[in-house]
């Protein structure tokens, strides 16, 4: 398994940098183009969900775990204790539709959203 991690300012202006590596990483895991597109949207939505909670001048950590036929993306930001991503809005609805697995966690280190995209069986 390979790991790729980006650390960037927790500011929407930098989210495009995460997106910029998404195609190449998705291809590496042999996802289909549809799945890579989904992953692009999921990266956007996960960041949209987290950034409002990020502490001022903090760092967004975007980590990709690469495996054959599986990619796991986790975005995390330092956030105030008790901060929770908004599960009632659009971002969450979209993320759940796009992900094979979707998790959030909040601990002492902040808030994170994890999205797993798995390749469907490549028949034929």
């Amino acid at each position, binding site marked *: 398994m390979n790991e790729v991690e980006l650390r960037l300012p927790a500011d929407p202006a930098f989210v495009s940098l995460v997106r*910029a590596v998404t*195609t*190449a990483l*998705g*291809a590496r895991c*042999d*996802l*289909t*183009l*549809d*799945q*890579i*597109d*989904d992953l*692009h*949207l999921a990266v*956007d*939505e996960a960041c*949209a969900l987290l950034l409002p909670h990020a502490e001022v001048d903090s760092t967004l950590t975007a980590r990709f775990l690469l495996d054959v036929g599986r990619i796991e993306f986790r975005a995390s930001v330092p956030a105030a204790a008790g901060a929770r991503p908004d599960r*009632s*809005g*659009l*971002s*969450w*609805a*979209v993320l759940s*539709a796009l992900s094979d697995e979707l998790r959030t966690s909040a601990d002492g280190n902040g808030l994170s959203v994890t999205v797993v995209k798995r390749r*469907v069986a*490549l028949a*034929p």
Partner: protein
Amino acid sequence: MSQHGTRDPAARAEASRLFVEMRALPEGSERHRRVRDQLAEMHLPLVEYLARRFTGRNEPFPDLVQVGAIGLLKSIDRFEPERGLEFSTYATPTILGEIKRHFRDTGWLLHVPRRAQELQARLATARGELSQELRRAPTVAELAVRLEVSQDEVIEALDVSRAYSGVPLDALAETDSAAVDNPLLSELDEQLDRVEQRAVLRPALDTLPRREREVLMLRFLAGKSQTEIAEIVGVSQMQVSRLISRSLGKLREELSHPTTAPDPT
């Protein structure tokens, strides 16, 4: 880098001699022009050396040299040898400036590298064909094999197509043609009312053009893949992909700054 011409003491001495001579000659005279040309030719390797640093950007090398040469000529005209600065030191920022300006003027940021542009057109075709053959979207590896290019080139072309939308999406989105009279759509509309987030989503969705709303519902309510939606709606997958990301952007905007009153239900 002895090919700069200026590192070789003999060549450097010759260059200084020519600079002194040129400045003494009346501008526009035949001899002035000849000395100027000679100096330009001597320092062309400097331009080539600098231009080579930009070749990763998909702009043809000869074009970069040509643009850089403009900077070289400007430097030759303005150089004052008596100041004791080396010519290459003096000329480098000007040459780099011209090359960078070229990227700016040709709208490098908006300018699709020619090779990627060509590949992009073939990519769209191959993507459609492979989807038909495989009954699912292809992978990058499969596309690379079909197009006989490297996977990196496919990735580059995909990112280019994502960044530079050549398709007038508005035209596409506003066509309320009868092409989309899939019974699935009215079903989805009813289904939307049962969704947990309907109070948030409904008013926001209603601000979108019909086509965009339909594509979003197909993707997120019906769980159709982009390939399937492309078939239902009758556009390419790439267009579906762009429509979705653009509509989501609009929705997000709408949800954070609603222009319509929230649905009281």
